[in-house]
């Protein structure tokens, strides 16, 4: 979570410096969801996660590197060769795949991943994320229902962070608990405190175990709060200040580090050391990303199909 927060803060600085091309999406205050859930996966068993816009934490947990993230945001010749932006990248060999923007569409796709595990009789689980807002889309319904009917090893986490862009949750749905959506599919649904990384981890772990036992999908609602605007340009004037304050007090990082200190699992010194290690690592990562060249324009022609090269300037082709 620290790493996630600090990567995003670094991106904030890079953005102020004009080095980020396009919008910056923050997951501040909700890192517990992405990190806790991704930690619950077992890459050795093949588990695959599909993080979306607020899930940088899952990307980093699965093994995406800060360098890659910086390369992406700086439009460098990084993991997607400059073709995609921000955390729209994946690495199947590291068990995570990148999203599309169209909210909900990754859900049927992750059903297909889950179906693959089932057909191969492998123990893997497919974990997909969606926002409170994104859960209103058609493919969310089609996908969840398919996962239920086919008994797929599939987990959907609805990150209920109070808003979808400017739209508060009560104008997205009449529900107070999104885990009630599970009732529409005859699958288990749980609501978990998304700012409690351990609780998220536990809920995901249970869901994964259930899936591995062949008992099908689980819907997890993770209740959290979007502490920043939708993207950097959004000052979220529409969010009541008290809510921000209230949720600020529930910061998942502070909370978890307090737990570590209280239980003696870490000392203040450990945490300080971790933070400064991260600082150092991120400086290296930024340097790496900055040193990465932009992609060559002409590489835009490549690989729509396997080994394909798109036609360029057909008007220059000889007419004969």
């Amino acid at each position: 979570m620290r790493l996630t927060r600090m990567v995003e803060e670094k991106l904030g600085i890079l953005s102020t410096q004009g080095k980020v091309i396009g919008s910056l999406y923050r997951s501040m205050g909700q890192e517990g969801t992405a990190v806790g859930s991704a930690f619950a996966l077992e890459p050795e068993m093949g588990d695959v996660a599909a993080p979306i816009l607020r899930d940088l934490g899952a990307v980093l947990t699965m093994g995406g590197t800060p360098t890659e993230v910086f390369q992406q945001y700086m439009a460098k010749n990084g993991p997607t060769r400059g073709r995609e932006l921000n955390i729209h990248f994946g690495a199947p060999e590291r068990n995570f795949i990148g999203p599309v923007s169209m909210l909900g569409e990754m859900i049927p796709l992750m059903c297909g991943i889950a179906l693959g595990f089932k057909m191969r009789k492998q123990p893997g689980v497919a974990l997909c994320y969606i926002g409170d807002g994104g859960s209103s889309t058609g493919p969310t319904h089609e996908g969840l229902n398919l996962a239920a009917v086919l008994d797929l090893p599939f987990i959907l986490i609805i990150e209920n962070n109070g808003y979808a862009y400017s739209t508060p949750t009560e104008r997205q749905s009449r529900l107070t608990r999104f885990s009630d959506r599970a009732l529409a599919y005859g699958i288990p649904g749980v609501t978990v405190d998304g700012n409690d990384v351990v609780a998220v981890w536990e809920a995901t772990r249970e869901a994964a175990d259930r899936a591995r036992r062949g008992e099908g999908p689980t819907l997890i609602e993770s209740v959290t709060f979007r502490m920043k605007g939708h993207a950097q340009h959004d000052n979220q004037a529409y969010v009541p200040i008290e809510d921000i304050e209230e949720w600020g007090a529930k910061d998942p990082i502070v909370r978890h580090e307090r737990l570590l200190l209280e239980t003696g699992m870490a000392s203040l010194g450990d945490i300080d050391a971790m933070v400064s290690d991260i600082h150092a690592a991120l400086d290296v990562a930024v340097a790496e990303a900055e040193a990465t060249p932009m992609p060559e324009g002409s590489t835009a022609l490549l690989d729509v199909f396997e080994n394909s090269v798109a036609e360029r300037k057909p008007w220059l082709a000889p007419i004969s």
Partner: protein
Amino acid sequence: MTAEVHEQARQVTFLEAIREALREEMTRDEKVFLIGEDIGSYGGAFKVTEGLHAEFGADRVIDTPISEAAIIGAAAGAAMMGFKPVAEMQFIDFISCAFDQLTNVVSKWRYRMGFGVPMVVRGPCGGGVRGGPFHSGNPEAFFANSAGLKIVEPSTAYDAKGLLKAAIRDPDPVLFFEHKYLYRLPRLRETLPDEDYIVPIGKASVRREGSDVTIITFGAMVYRALDAADKLAEAGISAEVIDLRTIVPFDVETVLASVKKTNRAIVLHEASRTGGFGGEISATITEKAFEWLEAPIIRVASLDTPVPYSPPLEDFYMPQVDDIVEAATRLSAY
């Protein structure tokens, strides 16, 4: 306030012209209402509807869940109830999520059922803003083969306002694409008439007259074409630039008149070349003005790839001024 500053103040951007059209139509006709994501008090992702929620209330500027198919379906139903819905897609790319509703319900309704579904679906299209594969789309060709939808894409503030008004008053469904690159482009600021006006759907505009080659285009590419025409003029080539304004049905008459004059045509658009609407235009010209053609029709368009994000890639992907100059030069030498 000096006169100059005042004049400046009355000038509107492309985006403001769209907002003016919405406001004026909502004032004129209480049946007009807006529906979409975050368009209410937030004013929309690009702030096109800013202020309208305060002015007209939540009943006339309706925020919805993230459900493009439902937005368009609900607009269609409301249209059947006598309303004039204007649905916003936050980015026009998301119109794909409502493709079935548009092509199977909305476009076919009048033909099947005998009464129309007057509604407008509008939203920001186009690239050049580093939006990547899902926020840069130009979907006109997706809808061009489904009879029953009109497709409009303005390139000036005046046209944006007048065409949007015409679209809202149209008895049939209109897709209204707003190139986001133009929204606040200073070059497009202009002073609009105080009085009500419309720009008719189906009529192109000759943006620049010329005698050697016709460039047929629309949307933000109009400016690439005009810039290319400037360059070509320096080289002694006189290019005529036609801004279609309406893509479906496009103004065949204006296009043919121009081609019959210049005898050479370039079709220019920002969507990918293969399967793009340029094919329709080119084929129509060949069908109807073959005798007048002294050279092949060249389509200048984006690569047959998704829209890549990184600047060098996106620049390479999209038609540049020099591409147009090159194509026109080649044609003229033909």
